[in-house]
């Protein structure tokens, strides 16, 4: 840390707090995502634990100053492990009236509001739908309010650089960042460094933003407004190297890692769609890893090209969101029938139809399980946290390659854009997921000549033999018509069809023995078991902690493998006659658990485009415990 910054920090009194939730809210044009993102990184570097929740509108840019145009970024930083972006923000930075209006209701009762008063003009108040100025009509009485003329101060701070006022205004988010960085004693240097290379292309912008940032920082320190700054100490973490990562980046890196671990080139066939596009963007950067990316003409071509690449021996992936999966069903069914490895990544979002493209939801589970015609079973893996997307990607690839099958990898908008500190894995310790290809004939044809039988199976995994084009003597044809067992020739024989249907199912069922058993957290004699999957992990953990803090017993299982289930799940569940299944849908996993284990599992649904909060989970569990007791 540089002298300057340390100097600053020694001069003013600092109050230590264990955690704080800050929400930056402004117009889509105000760069709130950038600001929040930067504050997050600084906090990560400082060693806090953190969870973020970007929250932006579906429009590219709605009219400036309107509620629809509000873009917000919430970050929860802490000196101990945390699992959610937080429930009610302690601090709301509102760059304009619309931001205040749309987000004030979220603020903690004892929270503070930092307002850019320069934006509180008649016009903006009207645009935000305020009849009266909330600063006068008592709306804010309950809160600690800091009124800061950010726009003006920013302009002043850059005057000496001769920046035009219009452009100057653009830097006001850096003023806000500087101010909040001072309030929470974030290190200054890293951010100044970051500004330098982020805007390397335009030196004036560097100067302007730097000036604005420093001005904001100085303002906090000098202005009477704030009697003191706060400090959130670094979190106790396992020793190691950490980086701050979003789910989509982790997933993309996991795929690259998988291709290294499988020793196969990576191929991505994809069509852009929110919130999955960033995986395409990230992978297309890493051509030096031999990664091939195709932005296809549509989702069907995306998965189609991946199937072609898989046939050619590449580790093939297609990425999309719900609407895309709904289009890929037929082609995925072909992959099931061809028994080719393929990873289908679904970054779930609010549905049905176009729904809420930029909001999170987890309502594609049953489509992943059943969204194809005929009996076409597929393994399903779901990530639980942003960082875990890395491991989930590797696991999905492992299963796909080992069992010659398409695999669903489920994430969602919350994981995709949310970030958390990630302890970098020891690359050497990552699993070898390489597979083997046929090099010699494994059978003879009618004429008695040695040939390749593509549907001869490994007796243990039931994976079929895989010969790559280019291998002499193993020429063969495969297709979507039913195939004769072993030879793979077209067959309309009734008994053969039934056998093949059962073989495909048996292959899937067998995977249960090859995945980690489900882990029961909490004692089996608890009154209730909470079963979750995917991004609800954080909120459920928080909720469970709170319930246990009240001295109540509750058990919990979080599933990464949803099809097949871990072999021990039935046994684990048999200890409970009541189960609660929180899901960001109307109860999809719940249905499957009931059908599979005849357990009276009850759904806890939230379908609001927002993740669960710990208190919501806590309340539901307490309620369940009571009603349970009442029974």
């Amino acid at each position: 840390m540089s002298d300057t910054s340390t100097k600053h920090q020694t001069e003013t009194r600092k109050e230590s707090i264990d955690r704080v939730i800050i929400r930056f809210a402004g117009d889509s044009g105000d760069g709130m995502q950038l600001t929040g993102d930067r504050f997050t990184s600084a906090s990560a570097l400082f060693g806090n634990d953190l969870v973020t929740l970007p929250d932006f509108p579906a429009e590219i840019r709605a009219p400036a100053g309107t509620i629809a145009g509000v873009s917000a970024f919430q970050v929860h930083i802490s000196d101990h492990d945390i699992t959610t972006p937080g429930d009610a923000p302690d601090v709301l930075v509102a760059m304009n009236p619309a931001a205040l209006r749309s987000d004030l209701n979220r603020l903690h009762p004892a929270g503070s509001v930092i307002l850019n008063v320069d934006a509180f003009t008649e016009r903006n108040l009207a645009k935000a739908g305020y009849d009266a100025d909330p600063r006068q009509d008592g709306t804010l009485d309950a809160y600690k309010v800091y009124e800061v003329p950010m726009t003006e101060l920013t302009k002043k701070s850059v005057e000496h650089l001769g920046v035009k006022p219009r452009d100057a205004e653009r830097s006001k988010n850096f003023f806000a960042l500087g101010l909040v960085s001072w309030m929470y004693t974030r290190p200054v240097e890293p951010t100044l460094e970051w500004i330098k290379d982020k805007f390397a292309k335009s030196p004036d912008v560097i100067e302007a933003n730097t000036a604005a940032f420093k001005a904001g920082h100085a303002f906090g320190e000098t202005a009477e407004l704030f009697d003191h700054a706060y400090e959130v100490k670094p979190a106790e973490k396992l020793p190691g190297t950490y980086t701050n990562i979003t789910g989509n980046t982790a997933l993309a890196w996991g795929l690259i890692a998988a291709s290294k671990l499988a020793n196969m080139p990576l191929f991505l066939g994809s069509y852009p769609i929110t919130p999955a596009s960033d995986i395409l963007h990230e992978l297309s950067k890493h051509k030096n890893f031999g990664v091939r990316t195709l932005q296809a003409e549509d989702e069907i071509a995306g998965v189609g090209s991946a199937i072609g690449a898989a046939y050619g021996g590449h580790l093939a992936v297609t990425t999309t969101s719900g609407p895309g999966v709904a289009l890929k069903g037929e082609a995925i069914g072909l992959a099931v029938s061809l028994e080719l490895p393929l990873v289908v990544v679904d970054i779930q979002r609010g549905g049905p139809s176009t729904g809420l493209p930029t909001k999170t939801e987890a309502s594609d589970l049953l489509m992943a399980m059943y969204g194809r015609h005929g009996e076409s079973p597929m393994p399903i893996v779901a990530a639980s946290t942003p960082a875990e997307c890395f491991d989930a990607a590797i696991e999905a690839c492992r299963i796909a390659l080992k069992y010659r099958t398409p695999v669903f990898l489920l994430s969602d908008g919350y994981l995709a854009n949310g970030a958390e500190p990630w302890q970098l894995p020891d690359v050497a310790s990552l699993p070898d997921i390489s597979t083997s290809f046929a090099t010699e004939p494994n059978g003879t044809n009618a004429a008695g000549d040695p040939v390749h039988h593509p549907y001869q199976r490994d007796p243990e995994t039931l994976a079929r033999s895989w010969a790559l084009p280019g291998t002499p003597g193993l020429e063969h044809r495969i297709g979507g018509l039913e195939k004769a067992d072993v030879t793979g020739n077209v067959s309309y024989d009734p008994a053969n069809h039934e056998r093949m249907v059962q073989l495909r199912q048996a292959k899937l069922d067998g995977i249960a023995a090859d995945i980690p058993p489900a882990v029961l957290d909490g004692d089996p004699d608890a009154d209730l078991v909470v079963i979750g999957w995917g991004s609800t992990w954080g909120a459920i953990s928080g909720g469970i902690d709170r319930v246990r803090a009240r001295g109540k017993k509750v058990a919990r299982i979080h599933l990464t493998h949803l099809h097949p289930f871990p072999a021990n799940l039935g046994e684990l569940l048999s200890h409970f006659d009541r189960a609660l299944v929180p899901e960001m849908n109307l109860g999809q996993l719940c249905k499957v658990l009931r059908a599979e284990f005849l357990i009276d599992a009850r759904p806890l649904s939230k379908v609001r485009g927002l993740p669960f909060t710990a208190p919501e989970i806590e309340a539901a569990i307490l309620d369940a415990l009571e009603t349970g007791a009442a029974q």
Partner: protein
Amino acid sequence: MTDTTIPVTTRKDWTSDQEVRWCPGCGDYSILAAVQLALPDMGVRREDVVFVSGIGCAARFPYYMNTYGMHSIHGRAPAIATGLAMARPDLHVFVVSGDGDALSIGGNHLIHALRRNVNLTILLFNNQIYGLTKGQYSPTSETGKVTKSTPFGSIEKPFNPVSVALGAEATFVARTHDMDRTHMIEMVKRAHAHRGTSIVEIYQNCNVFNDGAFGQITSKQTRDEMLIPLEHGKPIRFGADGRRGVVLDAGGIRVVDVADVGEDALLVHDEMAENPSVQFMLSRLASGPFEPTPIGVFRAVERPDYGTQVNQQLAAAQERNGPGDLEALLRSGATWEVA
């Protein structure tokens, strides 16, 4: 595959052990023969050849080739083949498709493959009907056609596959027909020799559901007067001892009697013209297989193919940043240590 010598093969080597299952008399048989006869001259190894098809009678083709092959799903062959050709530029990827497969459900994948110039050889078996589903009209069926799904006659204007391809930035476009094995073989060879996407429209007779669709122009008797052979660098002539020819002037393009205009007035075919306009004009000479119709190579221009360019970008990236280092990737963002 970097090659030593290619083994000498005959048709038999390219014939799979699967029974051919088309209706007796189907034009697909003669196309199959032509392809199997063309391959021995292409200087390729069986193991490096892949036939990808969609669904339809035509799409059964891969089963009969003793090469690698995939009988995929309806209309998606160009997309699947695109992925394969990108992943494996060392392979020779053929796409076999019917008029419905390629131009109805698969139309979008086809035009995008052409635009991207993926290294594929696309054989479009055009029988102007849906054969496998027992006789509905297709996007190439003539207006007024009575079929199972159009008992009162189709009201749709058919596509001209050559025009569609030229409008979609194709680099190689040719046309041939199932009654002329020699010409088919030549076209298939030329298409394969072209680096990038090549498409060959093959007029194919479906003797069960659309018998004689091309009889007026492809029969031995009518052929000479009804087919206009295109040959690069040659004046476009046809008919008994080149009686007739094609001219292009301010009035546009049209068929004439050579006697009336003189040889020198004839349009000289330029398949290599970068601008596809004149080639497009040729595709409009006939409004259907009942007027004098050009066959042969309409267009054959060089443009870097997709897979090669992808590989160049990969190579350049490795030049710049060295081969991917996972350890370094994970640390490419801001990192911090916890002791």
